[in-house]
């Protein structure tokens, strides 16, 4: 075998090795993927309104009373080892974004939306996947949840309510249909949100959101 042939063979071998390594890395870094997207979207459709009653509803024009909402205070997801305290959170005034609790082992319930008592609409809980300073967050493994996994949300009334995962979806943050997940109508459901997808190290930002939808079990 000539020197030249050996060089060529070495180049071929190196090329194969490089491509194999690249393929392995690519496989290991598959996005979470999406299951149950159709079911999640069906849940969000408002129920058809009953035919309007013949008589006109009359109410006393009293000032609106304080809402009777039951906030979730604790969330358990055995399948991915989550036991987290839930804080009631709102909107960051500066960014107009969901105010996820800064401590990554705590998660936030959107206090403007429905609470656990709601018979319609989406109860939204969001948590960090991780943080540069604090490491892994409560929802680090949210992307591993699958259809049929169960979780338990305990309300401020002490009652534990069980839910069953029906969908896991991944959306680019620029395309996620947030209106659907923050809806106050449609079937009662629990929506868990965190970050995921490719990470932009310069902007310190994930490209995607992972959304898990669960219904009362």
């Amino acid at each position, binding site marked *: 075998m000539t020197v030249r042939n050996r060089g060529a*063979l070495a180049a071929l071998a190196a090329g*194969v090795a490089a491509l194999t390594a*690249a393929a392995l*890395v690519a496989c290991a870094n598959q996005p979470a993927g999406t299951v149950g997207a159709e079911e999640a979207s069906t849940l969000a459709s408002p129920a058809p309104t009953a035919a309007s009653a013949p008589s006109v509803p009359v*109410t006393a024009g009293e000032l609106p009373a304080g809402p009777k909402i039951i906030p979730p205070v604790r969330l358990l997801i055995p399948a991915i080892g989550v036991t987290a305290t839930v804080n009631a959170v709102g909107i960051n005034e500066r960014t107009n*974004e969901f105010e996820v609790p800064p401590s990554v082992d705590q998660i936030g319930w959107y206090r*403007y939306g429905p609470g656990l008592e709601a018979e319609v609409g989406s109860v939204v809980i969001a948590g960090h996947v991780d943080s540069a300073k604090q490491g892994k967050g409560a929802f680090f493994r949210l992307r591993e949840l699958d259809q049929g996994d169960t979780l338990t949300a305990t309300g401020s009334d002490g009652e534990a309510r069980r839910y069953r995962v029906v969908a896991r979806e991944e959306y680019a*943050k620029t395309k996620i249909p*947030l209106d659907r997940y923050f809806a106050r109508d449609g079937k009662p459901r629990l929506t868990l949100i965190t970050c995921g997808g490719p990470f932009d190290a310069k902007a310190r930002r994930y490209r995607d959101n992972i959304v898990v939808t669960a219904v009362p079990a």
Partner: protein
Amino acid sequence: MQLSYFRRVAAGGAVAALAFAGVGALTAGPAYAATSKVSIVHGIPDTPVDVYVNGKKTLDNFKPGDVAGPLNLEEGDYDIALTKPGEPIGSAILTVDDAAVPGGANISIAAHLDATGQPKITPFVNDVSKVDAGKARLIVRHTAAAPAVDVRAGGTPVFEDLTNPNEAKGDVDAGEVKADVVLAGTDTVAIGPADLNLKEGTATIVYAIGSAEGKTLDVVAQTITGLHSAPGGVPSGDGGQAGTGVDTWWYVLTGAGVLLLLGGGVRMATARTGRT
């Protein structure tokens, strides 16, 4: 509650004129949106009434302080009449003929006293545009036999010099606020104080009703829900440990691999054909 979020909106007599005259142009939606939601607010003290719409009794023994509706009314002109309960429409105490209801609007029709204490009917177009996440809309309507007033929240005037039959409105932080109504430019409390619970994503409409002279000043409230918006986003990670997909080095590696394969292949091929 941050008062700076109150945006004073010019009330003007325009509101009333708008509803029955030119609202169609502003609010008319696509052709299919021909019905409007119409609520009726009773703000005349001590005077229960029957309400007739186009000669048909729609509300029976409608009491002061109550809100009826919303009714879904087709776009068109309507005759409205108020009678004492049980009395025939011929002896109505108040009538409005050919009230134009535009298509696709949300309207409140208030039966109330004018500034001099005479009963009248004023239509208001309700602002049902979406509010930002975390906000609630407060609308205050002066429908009482009373002079100009200021509306205060936590003791600070937020709507000033409001007169009958006009409205002022603003989008504010959702939550509870202690509100009262004072004679314009004074600290003389006319109504309240009352705790207002402004729920996020709703419009709370407060009508000042009754008569200052008759000492019957009061409020009627109407709430419109479903005006909420979703947050702008859910930022929930800046660590990068859960990143999926591939980095720049992956493309470099793949590119190098392809080049090596091509280069090696070409050399092998040229060697075989014996060309040097």
